[in-house]
């Protein structure tokens, strides 16, 4: 969180140039926005001018008809102005929304391109913030930040223009308060910004404390720390209150000061007009118009000073976003790829070495997770991988789908090195069932077909039937259209597993990779799952990280992985006879299952 709070400099030309590029597709809209701003500003500035005409040429001359005409024109200008102002406000929002939409999609696409190495290094929470909040912050910059600056500048310019053309001397007298207003506003902004930052820091402290002490309430209570924690919290809470009270002080000084500066200007207008009444250079209408101009100054000045904050937060967010967009942690894809349309399903690992941190240190050899792995699987065969925790089993199946690139050796499918084909083509032939079943919010059907239109509902149903998931699905209200909550919260562990099996079958792959879940389920579900696994393995090349004795026993080959190396290979009986690692593993993990099933 702390990282998100830091505010950097308000302007960075390099970042700004890159940001402005996102406006390019909408440059005509931006241009239109600027023109509309110009019109609105002009009509805003012309308002006191109508008052002057009404007073000086109509009322003073006793021209009632002229007054009606002037007022109707005034009304017309105001209504037109209202429409243009509305259109402009909407247009600027439209520009901002379209721009951040583009940016958000770019960030999302980029995230999808990045390899798993990137995801291993970056916490998901931070990435979500990039796609959501960081992009959101830029909205203000792209909408009001750019077009509205023009509007404020135009308004000030318009007011100046009318004042000087009406009476340049009176204009100078009135504007003599302007430096004070400018200085006061910017001083206030500066102070307000400081206290605002202070308040933010204190809020963050309150939140951190609350979060921590609600999560750790148990510790507070069993260690009798309630009173101590309370007084600590009270101190932080008081700092927050005091920071706010400091900020109230600046507001309390600023707003009356603006009023006072305005009153001084009115005083000056009256005094100057009276002083020169003899010469008759100032008319009543002019005085009234100037009183109105005087009230119109400070809004654009205040708005301009607010733009500083918008810029500052935009810079901080865009820096983080660009950093992400510049990250190039992607797989090494050669320029010419071999096609992989049809796959028989022969798999071979040849002297494969893999480490998650290959260039970590020059002096030390990389920390190999897998060392010199060689084995082959004929099409249609099932291979079981067994090993103790941390042996490298999961890594091995990740390499087959090419989630990571290996450092040495070769992985071949049908004799083709998988580095020579598009990873997407490769993955189309491999269905992966992970230990932690990941379900998406949506419904049953699209958790099986993952939204793939090429898979008709019939195939989804057939896959569910084959693995025996149809029984619980049909019992759900709306069956295949039944809602699935985030992470499948309403489904049992067994049901989730059956769903992930159905998913794998619906894609009808040549190669199946299965990481069996260890979590215990009731006997009935266990039988369903065993039956389903048997169905899945039929007729396709399969690699299974096995935790079930039944799976191991039915495998054509068992690979015993120990500390990153293949130590034993063979079938169940052969390996037991070896009386080595497999035997120990068997006694540790699988023997009980034999006792239970007998």
């Amino acid at each position, binding site marked *: 969180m702390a990282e998100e709070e830091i505010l950097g400099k308000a302007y960075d030309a390099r970042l700004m140039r890159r940001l402005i590029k996102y406006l390019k597709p909408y440059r005509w809209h931006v241009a239109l926005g600027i023109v509309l701003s110009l019109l609105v500003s002009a009509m805003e500035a012309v308002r006191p001018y109508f008052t002057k005409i009404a007073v000086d040429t109509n009322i003073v001359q006793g021209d009632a008809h002229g007054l009606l005409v002037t007022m109707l024109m005034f009304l017309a200008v*105001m*209504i037109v102005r209202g429409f243009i102002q509305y259109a402009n406000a*909407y247009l600027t*929002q439209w520009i901002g929304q379209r721009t951040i939409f583009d940016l958000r999609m770019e960030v999302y696409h980029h995230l999808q391109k990045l390899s798993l190495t990137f995801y291993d290094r970056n916490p998901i929470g931070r990435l979500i913030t990039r796609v959501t909040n960081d992009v959101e912050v830029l909205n203000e910059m792209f909408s009001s930040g750019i077009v509205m600056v023009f509007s404020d500048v135009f308004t000030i310019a318009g007011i100046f223009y009318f004042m000087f053309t009406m009476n340049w001397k009176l204009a100078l007298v009135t504007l003599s308060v302007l430096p004070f207003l400018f200085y006061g506003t910017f001083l206030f902004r500066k102070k307000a910004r400081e206290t605002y930052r202070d308040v933010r820091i204190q809020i963050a402290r309150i939140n951190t404390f609350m979060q921590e002490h609600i999560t750790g309430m148990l510790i507070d209570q069993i260690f009798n720390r309630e009173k101590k924690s309370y007084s600590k919290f009270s101190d932080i809470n008081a700092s927050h209150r005091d920071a706010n009270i400091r900020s109230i*002080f600046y507001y309390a000084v600023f707003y009356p000061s603006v009023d006072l500066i305005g009153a001084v200007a009115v005083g000056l207008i009256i005094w100057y007009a009276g002083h020169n*009444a*003899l010469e008759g250079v100032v008319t009543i209408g002019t005085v009234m118009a100037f009183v109105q101009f005087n009230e119109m100054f400070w809004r654009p000045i205040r708005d301009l000073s607010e733009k500083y904050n918008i810029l500052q937060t935009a810079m901080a967010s865009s820096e983080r976003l660009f950093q992400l967009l510049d990250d190039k942690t992607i797989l090494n894809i050669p320029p010419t790829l071999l096609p992989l349309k049809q796959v028989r399903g022969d798999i071979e690992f040849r002297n494969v070495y893999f480490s998650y941190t290959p260039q970590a240190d020059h002096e030390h050899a990389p920390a190999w997770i897998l060392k010199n792995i060689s084995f082959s699987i004929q099409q249609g065969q099932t291979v079981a991988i067994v090993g103790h925790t941390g042996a490298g089993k999961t890594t091995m199946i990740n390499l087959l789908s090419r989630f990571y690139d290996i450092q040495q050796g070769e992985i071949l499918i049908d004799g083709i090195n998988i580095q020579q084909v598009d990873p997407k083509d490769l993955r189309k032939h491999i269905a992966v069932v992970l230990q932690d079943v990941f379900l998406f919010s949506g419904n049953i059907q699209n958790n099986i077909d993952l939204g793939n239109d090429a898979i008709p509902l019939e195939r989804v149903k057939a896959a569910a039937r084959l693995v025996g998931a149809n029984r619980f699905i049909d019992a759900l209200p709306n069956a295949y259209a039944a809602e699935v909550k985030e992470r499948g919260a309403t489904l049992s562990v067994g049901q989730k597993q059956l769903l992930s099996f159905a998913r794998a079958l619906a894609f009808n792959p040549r190669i199946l990779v299965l990481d069996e879940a260890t979590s215990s389920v009731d006997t009935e579900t266990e039988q369903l799952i065993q039956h389903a696994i048997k169905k899945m393995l039929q007729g396709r090349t399969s690699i299974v990280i096995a935790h079930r004795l039944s799976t191991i026993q039915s495998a054509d080959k068992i690979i015993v992985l120990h500390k990153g190396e293949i130590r034993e290979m063979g079938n169940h009986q052969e390996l037991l006879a070896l009386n080595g690692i497999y035997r120990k593993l068997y006694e540790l993990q699988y023997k009980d299952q034999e006792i239970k099933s007998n």
Partner: protein
Amino acid sequence: MRPLLRLKPYLLRYKKTLLFGLLTVIGSNVFTVVQPMFLGKAVDELKHGIESHTFVSGDLLLWAGLIVGFSIIAGICTFLTRQTIIVASRHIEFDLRNDLLSHLQKLSYSYFQNTPTGDLMAHATNDISAVRNAVGPGIMYPSDTVMTLSFVLMMMFMADWQLTLLVLIPMPFVSYVVYRLGKLVNKIFTDRQEQFSLLTTHAQETLSGVRIIKAYVREEYESERFRKLSWEYLKKNLVLAQVQSIMWPLMFVLVGISLVIAIYFGGLKVIDGRMTIGTLTAFTAYLSMLIWPMIAFGWVTNILQQGAASMNRLATIFDKEPEIKDTGTTDHSIDHIDGGIEFRSVSFTHKNAAQPTLKNINLMIEPGTTVAIVGYTGSGKSTLVNLLPRLYDITGGELLIDGKDIRNIPLDVLRSSIGFVPQETFLFSETIAENIRYGVDEFKEEDLHSAAETSQIAKDVLEFPKQFNTTIGERGITLSGGQKQRTSIARAIMRQPKILILDDALSAVDTFTEEKILQHLREFMKGRTSIIISHRISTVKDADLIVVLQNGAIIERGTHDDLVSFGGIYADLHQKQLLEQQLEEM
């Protein structure tokens, strides 16, 4: 608005400040409202001067001076209003937030297990600040509005009542429009927030599930879904923009109509000589003073409504009664505990659970002995020890400490006699020293070091740059799981408790370090009752008594040797751990 009545005691606390604030509101209005009158007088005099070509500067200077002078006084009053009413609202916010924490501290463990932390955080931040808004601006603006309205209307009626009635026609629409648009904006805003959370959820899901998406080559499909959600979000934002953009232009048009009415009909009167030009000037100035109160009226209504809704949510927390607390039967003469524990046919069922978590537990623990609890995940081990500091109250049987019903022992006496190392290690992001001495008020430096020594964290700590003053979690200093557990053990030891509870507290510590900790603990545990939960045989084998729990019931009990020869679950566990050791060495 009814829920806001609950704020009465808070408001009364700042009664004087608030009343003074209301006085300053009156003051600032009085001194502001007369200013246009001075302007009117000045204009009339100016007109007279221009027409008669006489020098008028002296009198004009008086009016100009009065405007500036009154503006200064009004300014001081406005300053004081903010310094009293708004400042008071910050004090009330402070009190309210303190009270919220203090109330939460009294609520029991089960409440926090059933209430998402995120919800409580939202109450502590958003709801409290909405209530604050209702008390600060919610008092200042309405009172200011009412004052301004009555004073300005009075002045306008005095100047010309007919014209006043005419120009007032569009004014109620201003309030109404602000109120309705405000409501509409809130509704669309909520709608938009929901879409935003859909977007966030999708990002969250597809980023967490990136493995599956890549494995099944669903990147394009998910992009398309994300594009649709983003597009929907964009549309909702534009709807919001439509409504928000209409607010100010519409306002200006309505106010403009009033101004046109004033100048046209006022102008006609001036032409007919029934009104002076100065009065008309004053009149238009008054008109511009009415705009803000009209806007504020609609706006404040929304603030008050939101404040009331938030207060309602806060009230549900404040009305929650603490489940576990001292009662009338508490015997306050008990001021210490020796450490004898007896479970007599204890059973425990979680609220809303169909099955009991603990069934018919009978267990006698003499003061100063060590008992180990072993069993599979979900067998009820943690629940059993959670009953001792009364994180839960038993639902059947009797639980006695030193022969007395646990519910009759004052809660703070009970808890201060227990050193608890929970299964999920929780440390605060403070210094290591502060974490270790968390449960004691006074201590000697040696105690801290010896607690750290006993739990084997001392050596690790001395390698940190700031040693015991290293803040956990700061600048990338993160402790490993094992280091955290050892700090947590030091914290429990530091209290010199009569009863020490280790709930699977050595799971992340390697076997070598574990052996050393156990050695040190053996010395420390002399004369103290200890209860140790563990999955590891090595941790529990030396206990005076080992009990095996399964499905909430004790199914085996005895010493290590007894249980190994018995050949049940414990013996099986023992066998497996021997195998693991052998595997590790292969």
